């Protein structure tokens, strides 16, 4: 890592080097912990850093290297959005209400990654309970965008986007109910996949809206997301939404050609429904031309308006999130952030008839979306209207005013990825969204991978400045912080 020539490795590169015994998992883990110590005070991506635990897991990976029983992610350092239960390590949902919550078991997704040999670096910032926006009235500050720390990461998987872009973790687990993997992927210039619902188990993940919640991988490249998905995908009878997915290797199929692929360009999404800026439109137009050169058949496609999907998504999320939090909102409403309250309290007033009207409308939108896939293999749109906005322009009371270009995929129950398609004049990432039919996750990742290749964005990383007076990891042991393991060193909640 720093000074050793291993900065900014991808998961694929690190896995190859580890397998070839050219990179030690312990060296890689220590390098990332040193980067976290040097840079995370500015980025605030991590709520909990598990120095001791991570080193112990890296040592176990070193021992496993000497055997034939090697997991597919042996020695790969990852981090998890702090709504994923982690045995013995506090899981706060970035909320003071759960500041001392230490689960006894791992979430299924965390367990699968651990079984594959991954190293857990720590737990990542989120919007409180994965909804709302950046909040300054919580025990931890919001994550900041490594490309410009005055700017928003997007959310709610905010820490995941920031940590991966800053090279503090090779990959992460995020969750996506209306765009929470894909918006930070867009603003932070990384790759993220919202899988087909049911493909990845949600067991052990603090829910927001069970009708729409999905969990998925975030990493620097689409190929890395595919490597993670190969481990994450699988039936889990303990998640009622889990479905046995297709038997496919997402990583092995990622480089297959895209010639002949029918790509539907959802021009109305980013030109009429939620108008994007000129830089975003130029980036989409340039990618379209490049895809045609690769042999893709790109034609304009039309879905119902983004506003229709957003109305349905917002009503369902608000009603379900309120129902989940009702008891606590009655007794401890003042302990939530204002941002959370603004988004969730309206759920107290949504009538059952309105909630069911939204669910019925969702059925129409699912059917309308599926019909479009009779004519197209994949759909393409901007991920966001522009690059990352300033953090201090984010207003808690904006509420539901701005529709998301990402929510249609949640409402339509389809897979969708976001990758970096270019950069703005200010050097900020611009994200492009690829959507596919149910179970088309491999196809979505394949096109995402090819877009990364033609866009040529993966060699560019944010320039970070180490914070003044940085303390090494060994001095960051937080006295009295919640932890169930003597091997973990956990950052205490400030303030």
């Amino acid at each position, binding site marked *: 890592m720093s000074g050793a020539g291993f900065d900014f490795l991808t998961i694929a590169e690190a896995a190859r080097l580890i397998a070839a015994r050219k990179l030690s998992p312990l060296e890689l883990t220590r390098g990332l912990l040193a980067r976290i110590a040097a840079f995370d005070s500015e980025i605030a991506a991590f709520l909990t850093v598990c120095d001791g635990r991570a080193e112990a897991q890296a040592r176990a990976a070193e021992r496993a290297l000497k055997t034939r029983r090697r997991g597919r992610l042996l020695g790969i350092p990852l981090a998890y959005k702090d709504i994923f239960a982690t045995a013995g390590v506090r899981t706060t949902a970035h909320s003071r209400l759960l500041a001392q919550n230490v689960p006894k078991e791992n979430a299924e997704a965390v367990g699968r990654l651990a079984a594959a040999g991954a190293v857990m670096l720590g737990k990542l910032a989120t919007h409180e309970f994965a909804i709302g926006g950046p909040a300054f009235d919580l025990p931890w500050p919001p994550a900041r965008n490594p490309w410009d720390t005055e700017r928003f990461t997007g959310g709610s998987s905010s820490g995941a986007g920031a940590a991966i872009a800053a090279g503090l973790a090779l990959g992460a687990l995020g969750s996506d109910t209306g765009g929470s993997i894909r918006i930070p992927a867009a603003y932070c210039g990384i790759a993220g996949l919202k899988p087909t*619902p*049911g493909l990845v188990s949600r067991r052990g993940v603090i829910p927001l809206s069970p009708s729409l919640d999905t969990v998925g991988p975030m990493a620097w490249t689409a190929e890395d997301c595919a490597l993670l998905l190969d481990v994450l995908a699988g039936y889990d009878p303990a998640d009622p939404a889990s*479905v*046995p*997915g*297709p038997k*496919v290797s997402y990583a092995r*199929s990622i480089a297959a050609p895209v010639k002949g*692929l*029918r790509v539907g360009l959802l021009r109305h999404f980013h030109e009429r429904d939620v108008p994007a800026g000129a830089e975003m439109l130029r980036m989409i137009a340039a990618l379209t031309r490049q895809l045609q050169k690769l042999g893709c058949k790109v034609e304009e496609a039309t879905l119902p308006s983004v*506003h*229709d999907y*957003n*109305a*349905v998504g*917002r*009503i369902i999320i*608000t009603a379900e999130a309120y129902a989940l939090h*009702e008891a606590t*909102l*009655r007794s401890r*409403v*003042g302990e939530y952030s*204002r941002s959370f*309250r*603004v988004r969730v*309290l*309206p759920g*107290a*007033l*949504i*009538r059952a008839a*309105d909630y*069911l*009207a*939204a*669910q*019925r*409308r*969702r*059925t129409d939108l*699912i059917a309308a979306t599926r019909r479009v*896939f*009779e*004519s*197209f*293999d*994949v759909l393409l749109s901007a991920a966001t209207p522009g690059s990352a906005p300033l953090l201090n322009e984010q207003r*808690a*009371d904006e*509420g*539901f005013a701005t529709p998301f270009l990402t929510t249609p995929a949640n409402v339509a*129950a389809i897979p969708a990825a976001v990758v970096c398609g270019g950069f703005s004049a200010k050097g900020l990432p611009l994200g492009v969204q690829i959507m*596919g*039919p*149910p*179970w*088309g996750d*491999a*196809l979505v990742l394949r096109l995402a991978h090819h877009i990364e290749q033609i866009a040529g964005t993966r060699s560019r990383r944010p320039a970070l400045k180490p914070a003044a007076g940085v303390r090494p990891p060994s001095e960051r042991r937080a006295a009295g912080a919640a932890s169930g393991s003597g091997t973990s060193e956990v950052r205490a909640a400030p303030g």
Partner: protein
Amino acid sequence: MPDRPANHGVGVTPAEMEFLVARAGLSLNPGQMADLVLIWRQMAGLISSLPRERALADDAAFAFRLPPPAKPGNGAAKRRRR
């Protein structure tokens, strides 16, 4: 009495809002109540945008079920034969 459009809560008065909040078992301070009044207008607009004209029997079960996964390979979309 002439027909009138359904009111999906757009025109909730402050007194009605206080009643609804109390009925929900919530105890909000004035700032929290002001936020809720402001944001409810947006939510009520979203609710009003939902179509309501469908027949009762249009879909007896609104819950969706995913189809079985397609065979792996080039594209999950079914290509129409011409």
